[in-house]
């Protein structure tokens, strides 16, 4: 029996106000591609609508960007309804091939990319020491560890000047699986045990997905900070020099809209160079197109949405700064003409 939480579905008054903000609906056009449509689909399932490929597509093309939730006048929570419905269907064994594979990959390899190589191989480029115990742990994340080693090295290079270490055996935080409907108790238990071993009280994240998940799905035992928040607190100690650059900043949905981290990255950027905002920013920033499993499940849609976001880069900027490797990846693959750079790599330029 599915527990679709009918009350949360019925909270939607079907006003359609979310039609004005959903980037996927704008791209796809069918009612089923917006928040109202997806809630209707969830309602349909509760009324016996067959779960076929189209139903899964409607539910799975949501980027969980939270635009709809933020603006819903009625106080409905579409992202919760969508994620809960995905979860209920997964529990009943109903999922797409992309979902099934993602789950297999992470459960087998401990990372979202299915990599079998050493998650810590980036350390070969890292020259400093690794503390055995520390108050803070830099939670590297799968995408950083395997795809953006330079930016991970840069981040740890900056962070390790403080009371920060890394986990001896970090695995995926579980974000991609939670977003697509799976339970991740094992992954959570593993990472928590590692945290306890290191004696840390705080996670430092450099990925919006990890950040949101560590806050939302991990026990309250640990604090969670984004690397921009940590750096903001330590700006004076970093003695950064000013760079002759103008950059723009892309707010990651799960860091900004979902967790309210808007100011810290901006303060860090402004400490080293000039900032020019993108057309939509802060609470109203468009998604990079990568979230919610859309990058994996619907690459064409995801890249089309990345292109729309790239159109919002203002003229005359040297870099597009991001604070999440998934956004970085999607915006680069979306064909950015402007170089995309991680926030901490920018900070590193101001240290050297």
């Amino acid at each position: 029996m599915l527990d679709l939480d009918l009350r949360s579905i019925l909270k939607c008054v079907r006003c359609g106000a979310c039609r004005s903000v959903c980037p996927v609906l704008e791209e796809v056009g069918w009612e089923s591609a917006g928040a109202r449509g997806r809630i209707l689909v969830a309602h349909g399932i509760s009324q016996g609508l067959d779960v076929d490929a189209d139903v899964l597509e409607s539910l799975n093309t949501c980027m969980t960007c939270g635009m709809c939730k933020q603006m819903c006048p009625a106080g409905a929570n579409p992202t919760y309804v969508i994620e809960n419905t995905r979860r209920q269907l997964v529990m009943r064994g109903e999922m797409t091939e992309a979902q099934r594979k993602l789950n297999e990959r992470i459960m087998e390899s401990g990372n979202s990319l299915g990599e079998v190589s050493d998650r810590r191989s980036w350390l070969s480029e890292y020259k400093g020491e690794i503390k055995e115990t520390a108050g803070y742990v830099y939670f590297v994340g799968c995408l950083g560890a395997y795809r953006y080693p330079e930016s991970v090295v840069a981040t740890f290079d900056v962070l390790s000047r403080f009371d920060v270490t890394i986990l001896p055996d970090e695995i995926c935080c579980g974000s991609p699986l939670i977003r697509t409907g799976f339970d991740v108790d094992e992954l959570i238990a593993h990472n928590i045990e590692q945290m306890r071993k290191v004696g840390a009280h705080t996670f430092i994240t450099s990925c919006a997905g990890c950040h949101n998940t560590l806050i939302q799905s991990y026990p309250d035992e640990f604090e969670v900070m984004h690397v921009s928040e940590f750096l903001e607190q330590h700006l004076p100690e970093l003695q950064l020099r000013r760079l002759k650059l103008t950059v723009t900043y892309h707010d990651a949905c799960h860091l900004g809209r979902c967790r309210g981290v808007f100011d810290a990255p901006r303060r860090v950027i402004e400490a080293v160079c000039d900032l020019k905002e993108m057309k939509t920013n802060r609470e109203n920033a468009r998604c990079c197109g990568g979230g919610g499993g859309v990058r994996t499940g619907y690459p064409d849609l995801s890249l089309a949405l990345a292109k729309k976001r790239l159109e919002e880069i203002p003229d005359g900027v040297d870099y597009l700064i991001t604070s999440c490797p998934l956004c970085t990846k999607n915006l680069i693959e979306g064909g950015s003409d402007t170089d995309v750079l991680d926030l901490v790599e920018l900070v590193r330029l101001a240290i050297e």
Partner: protein
Amino acid sequence: MDLIKKLHEIVGIDRATTSPMQLYCYSSDSSQIRGTPECVVRPQNTGQVSQVLRFANEHDIPVTARGAGTGLAGGAVALEGGIVLDLSGMDRILDIDINNLQVAVEPGVIHSRLNEVLGTEGFFFPPDPGSSEMCTLGGLIANNGSGMRSVKYGTTRSYVLDLEIVMADGSVINTGSKTLKSSAGYDLTRLMVGSEGTLGIITKAVLKILPLPKARTVVLASFDNPVLAGEAVVKTLSAGVIPSACEILDRATVEVLNAYDPNIAIPDAGATILFELDGTVSSVKEQAKIVEAVCMPFASGIRIAAGGEEMKEIWSARRLVGAAISRIDPNKTRVYVGEDIGVPIKEVPRMLKFIQSISGEFGLPIITYGHIGDGNLHTGMCIDMLDNEQWKQLDLAADKIHRTAIMLGGTVSAEHGIGSARSKYMRLERGNALDVMILIKRALDPRGILNPGKLGL
């Protein structure tokens, strides 16, 4: 011939579907009316609409037009199956002709987008629905919608100069011309506006636009009860001030607004009136003074909004307050029924009293807000959607609200349309004029394929 095969031939494989999931998503609008189509089509141009209609007419297949599906009367819901034509993808602004004070648009253009674009030229399209951010101009025209500014600027009907219409048999006509006025024959434009997709499909519209006023201000007046507020409005209008908006909010509505956007601090009062005044800087000041003087004897407090930012916030929250009243109770949801009555302005205070007593009689809190300046009141009711008894009470209360409005010489729908939710009141409200409407419908759509089951036809 296989319907979906033919539709795929006309619009392409990606733009017509019979997927049960899609059909479910198109089986409702923002009302409680439900009806599942056999297929949904998303045409891209007039030619495709024309071909779909010709085929549908030849085979007696019902066709229901749909814009954004934000209608509150089930207008876009296919009651007898057939085809839903989703026109939201025909969304180009075709021409902005400032010298002729007009724009040409496709029906899927979103209302707010038109005004954003026009605003950069110093112009605007005055009808101002709460659903501005999401409704299409096609839907607005088909419903003769309006909004907060209709007290001064009138309804959509006053701004439509010409419509390109695909008739039931697939032929294409233009109802008007590019001139700002015309005496050439029957006014088919005005006939089509408000016809809710029962006489033809709008594929293009030429709309009159106006220069943006130089100045706007908002006066917030608080009253001990809605009846005093109603009297103050009647006196203001008869003192010769026509506000560009004149909105009533009862106590609960103010609570909801303040909770929805905590930056808006409207004082708690039995009722609040928001007067918006526009014009030149000096005329706005002068009008504000008159409003203050006229309201003073009735009001418990009066203040002028701090500036543009505050006004913007008040209006954007006010626009969506109808949905926001769902926030009052986590287990209840706003249900749009009986929500759009209009009464002669003089009868507003009486209607407000009736609403209070209907609320008591059926044990349902009724939140009242609306465009009091033109007699259009929105009554908002929230119920526990899982409680059948509450549904029953809700329907009874809505029925009484509708009948009371008609009894006072009013209408069951001032701007949202009749659709199927209110079709049973057409005879009562329109008498034998309904027979003329039926004759017109038969003449223009002899096989009855266009949006069957609507308007009491």
